[in-house]
């Protein structure tokens, strides 16, 4: 009764507020349009050079000859630059090589003369080349832009003339699950240049150098033809030789085979890959040596013992560390969450796991690793799916937490899996942390997204005796993740160590990872004098396992020293990226190695100059950048169609080269949600008020 006399004032206030809010939100939201199709994530992408419909005046033909002996491939690439115009030309061509290949020879053939390239520090080589070009001499230059991307330039090719440029490189043969393979990349895909790397003029210049125009399909017929032949002498009887992307003709003897392209020539639009196997048991060959300038170099391939010897997989403790910092926001975060959810499904009931997430703060899902029961897994799964990318990146506390081991002498395999884009700081502290408190744990780095800091992640994985895997985005991520987890589930030899009696060996990698089924480990080392025995030992299936190699029985191979140098350079790069040495120091070391081993590096280039001037003074020199073929499977219209459209959009610049810019997404789209939310609140409050009113009435 009293209530009726005193109507509740707060309710009336609330009602007014609500109605006000409701109309305010209506006005604010404005007219709502129908849903539009979901766009592809609008990251900023620069396609620097675009396409060309102009048939180049300089035609290029490439011949590739590979000789596989034992476990090393030596490849000779001959590029013929033919000038079909009546002008003097300079031509340049961007091409890929295997990551671990070392280019050591440049020959330029002009008419009857052969000019041998010399190795020079990068700037000096460029200067020699440019001076020769100015003075009308023929010159060739090989420069490296990424460990797997090179550019050849040839200056002063006369009208109607052909200049041959020949480079030679070597690369170790890959060996996975008893199969051997050689990959000769033939084309550089139009590159995505991550925009945040283009913050300085120097970076923009490098990006410019790393991209090349792509030939329009209307002219690409017969452009950049390649012929390939491979002489296979693996030291055993090669069987099941196959080339998945090209049709090949094979002629063979008992222990060798020769492979050529069926059609003679193919366009340079997809990588050439050759697989082969060994008849019967995979041979245990794998010891090669070379003496180079007073030092001995050795390459050893450690093949894990047959899986049959290995007992069942011991229980594991898997610690997942997932980066949810702001740089991961969007696709990367999604890929990381999905990868983690997938990884959780691979756990067995005997395994234990934990999830740690970090941005500038960190959270551990469980205070210590828990058993992988259905409840815990479900909790982990929900947690993984709830993560959003926000905030800064402070990885160190998460790393510390992950390395904290409650049972350091347990027999579980402790595997720490990092999912991050590697946009990290304080690298030095992290390397130190891994080195000091690794214990029985193994650190596996999974690089997510398009621009992970691979050097640092590789380095961390190496220090953590694990592996580095780069998974991209979207669908690719799960596939890569599955492969990686499959490998991790099959460690064959752990606690691997190498001892050499005789002279000490400087081995790389210095910290040995575990051996996984089907994946041999390649070791490269240098020493003053190679002798004695090398003993490799470790734990296989809970038992001591060891094998001894007699270094005196190593086969001679002329490639080992350079492969060692190449490997050493990638170690230096990793140290540079983990700030263990400063940039100048690293540059100096790379330059010294490049000069000493006569290989093309980031700091050293090969340059060849024909001392006889050929271009008459006063004649103009035209520079031409040879277009690349688009990799097979890439859609030209899709990639470059927008450029044509853009030209229509900006007719005043139609004749000029266009730079395509992707525009980022610019909407928060909070209004709809806000409106719906407020509407619900209004309805709820109205209901309450109505009830009250009914009661009083």
């Amino acid at each position, binding site marked *: 009764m009293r209530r009726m006399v005193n109507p509740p004032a707060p309710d009336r206030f609330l009602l007014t507020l609500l109605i006000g809010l409701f109309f305010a939100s209506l006005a604010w939201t404005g007219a709502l349009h129908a849903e539009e199709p979901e*766009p*592809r994530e609008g990251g*900023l992408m*620069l396609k620097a050079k675009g396409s060309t419909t102009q048939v180049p005046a300089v035609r290029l033909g490439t011949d590739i000859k590979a000789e596989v002996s034992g476990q090393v491939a030596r490849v000779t690439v001959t590029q013929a630059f033919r000038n079909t115009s009546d002008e003097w030309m300079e031509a340049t061509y961007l091409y890929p090589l295997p990551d671990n290949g070392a280019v050591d020879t440049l020959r330029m053939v002009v008419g009857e003369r052969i000019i041998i390239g010399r190795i020079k520090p990068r700037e000096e080589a460029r200067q020699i080349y440019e001076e020769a070009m100015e003075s009308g001499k023929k010159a060739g230059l090989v420069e490296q832009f990424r460990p797997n991307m090179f550019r050849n330039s040839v200056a002063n090719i006369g009208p109607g003339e052909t200049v041959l440029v020949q480079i030679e490189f070597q690369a170790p043969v890959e060996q996975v699950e008893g199969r051997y393979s050689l990959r000769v990349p033939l084309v550089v895909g139009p590159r995505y240049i991550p925009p945040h790397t283009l*913050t300085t003029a120097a970076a923009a210049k490098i990006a410019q150098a790393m991209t090349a125009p792509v030939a329009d399909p209307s002219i690409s017929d017969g452009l950049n033809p390649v012929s390939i032949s491979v002489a296979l002498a693996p030291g055993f009887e090669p069987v099941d030789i196959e080339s998945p992307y090209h049709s090949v003709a094979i002629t063979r003897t008992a222990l060798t085979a020769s492979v050529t392209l069926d059609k003679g020539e193919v366009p340079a639009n997809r990588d050439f890959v050759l697989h082969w196997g060994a008849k019967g048991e995979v041979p245990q060959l794998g010891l090669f040596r070379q003496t180079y300038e007073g030092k001995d170099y050795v390459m050893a391939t450690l093949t894990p013992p047959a899986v049959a010897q290995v007992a069942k997989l011991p229980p594991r403790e898997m610690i997942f560390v997932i980066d949810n910092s702001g740089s991961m926001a969007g696709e990367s975060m999604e890929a990381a969450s999905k990868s983690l959810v997938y990884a959780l499904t691979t756990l067995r009931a005997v395994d234990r796991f934990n999830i740690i997430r970090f941005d500038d703060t960190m959270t551990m899902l469980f205070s210590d690793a828990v058993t992988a029961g259905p409840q815990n897994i479900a909790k982990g799964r929900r947690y993984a799916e709830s993560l959003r990318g926000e905030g800064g990146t402070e990885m160190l506390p998460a790393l510390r937490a992950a390395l904290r081991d409650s049972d350091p002498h347990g027999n579980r395999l402790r595997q720490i899996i990092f999912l991050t884009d590697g946009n990290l700081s304080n690298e030095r502290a992290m390397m130190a942390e891994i080195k000091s408190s690794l214990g029985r744990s193994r650190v596996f780095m999974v690089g997510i997204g398009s621009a992970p800091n691979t050097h640092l992640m590789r380095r961390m994985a190496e220090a953590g005796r694990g592996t580095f895997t780069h998974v991209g985005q979207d669908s690719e991520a799960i596939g890569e993740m599955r492969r990686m987890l499959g490998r991790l589930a099959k460690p064959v030899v752990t606690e691997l160590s190498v001892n050499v009696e005789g002279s000490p060996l400087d081995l790389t990698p210095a910290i040995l990872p575990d051996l996984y089924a089907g994946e041999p480990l390649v070791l490269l080392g240098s020493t003053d004098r190679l002798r004695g025995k090398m003993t490799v030992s470790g734990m296989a299936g809970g038992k001591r396992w060891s094998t001894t190699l007699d270094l005196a029985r190593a086969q001679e191979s002329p490639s080992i020293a350079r492969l060692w140098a190449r490997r050493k350079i990638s170690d230096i790069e990793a140290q540079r990226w983990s700030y263990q040495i400063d940039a100048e120091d690293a540059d100096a070391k790379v330059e010294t190695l490049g000069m000493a081993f006569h290989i093309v590096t980031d700091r050293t280039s090969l340059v060849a100059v024909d001392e006889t001037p050929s271009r008459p003074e006063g004649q103009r020199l035209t520079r031409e950048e040879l277009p690349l073929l688009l990799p097979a499977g890439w859609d030209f219209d899709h990639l470059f169609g927008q450029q044509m459209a853009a030209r229509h959009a*900006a007719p005043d610049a139609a004749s000029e080269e266009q730079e395509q*810019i992707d*525009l980022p997404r610019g909407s928060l*789209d909070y209004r709809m949600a806000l409106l719906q939310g407020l509407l*619900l609140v209004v309805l709820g409050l109205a209901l309450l008020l109505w009830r009250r009113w009914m009661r009083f009435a």
Partner: protein
Amino acid sequence: MNETISRGAGGRGWRRALPQLFAAALLLGGAALAIPAAWMPAKAALAQVLLERNFEANLATGHNHRPWPWADISASARLTVDRLGVSDIVLSGASGEAMAFGPAEFPTRQHGRLKLLAAHRDSHFAWMRKLKVGDRIELEGVDGFTTQYEVTRMETVEWDRFAVPAQLHRETLVLATCYPFDASGPGPLRRIAIAERIA
């Protein structure tokens, strides 16, 4: 008797509670939707206040400070359009995340000659619907240097169908946001303003 009464009372209680439960569910659901949504413009506005201070500090010291301790970004310029009474702090360290806080500068290949700024249509670049050809835009950098641009063209393009001449003759500023302005979800269209430097 007693039993009947209590049962009746129990039934009534339950029936009375139902609409209240329903109302509570509506309120909770509404709050769950509205609060994160309202947080977005609030964050955008709040960040601008912090960034304004950060920009002044950067201007005074000539160094780039972080606007808040866990930020991956810093204030790099102040964008003003006098006619529209606009003053926004532009961020470097462009990412989708940066755009939650203010217009973000995206690097371009023609560094120095071409500036690309992007922001959300429903927060910092909401004023782009009123922008028109001839408007003056000022950009004050952390070095204290001010550049003036004049809008020469407004266009609506698809996000991946925009290009500028590879060799720009004049310093150019491109502002980009989503389009249409009142749409409720993400779409492929972008509204862009192209402005050329006049001073």
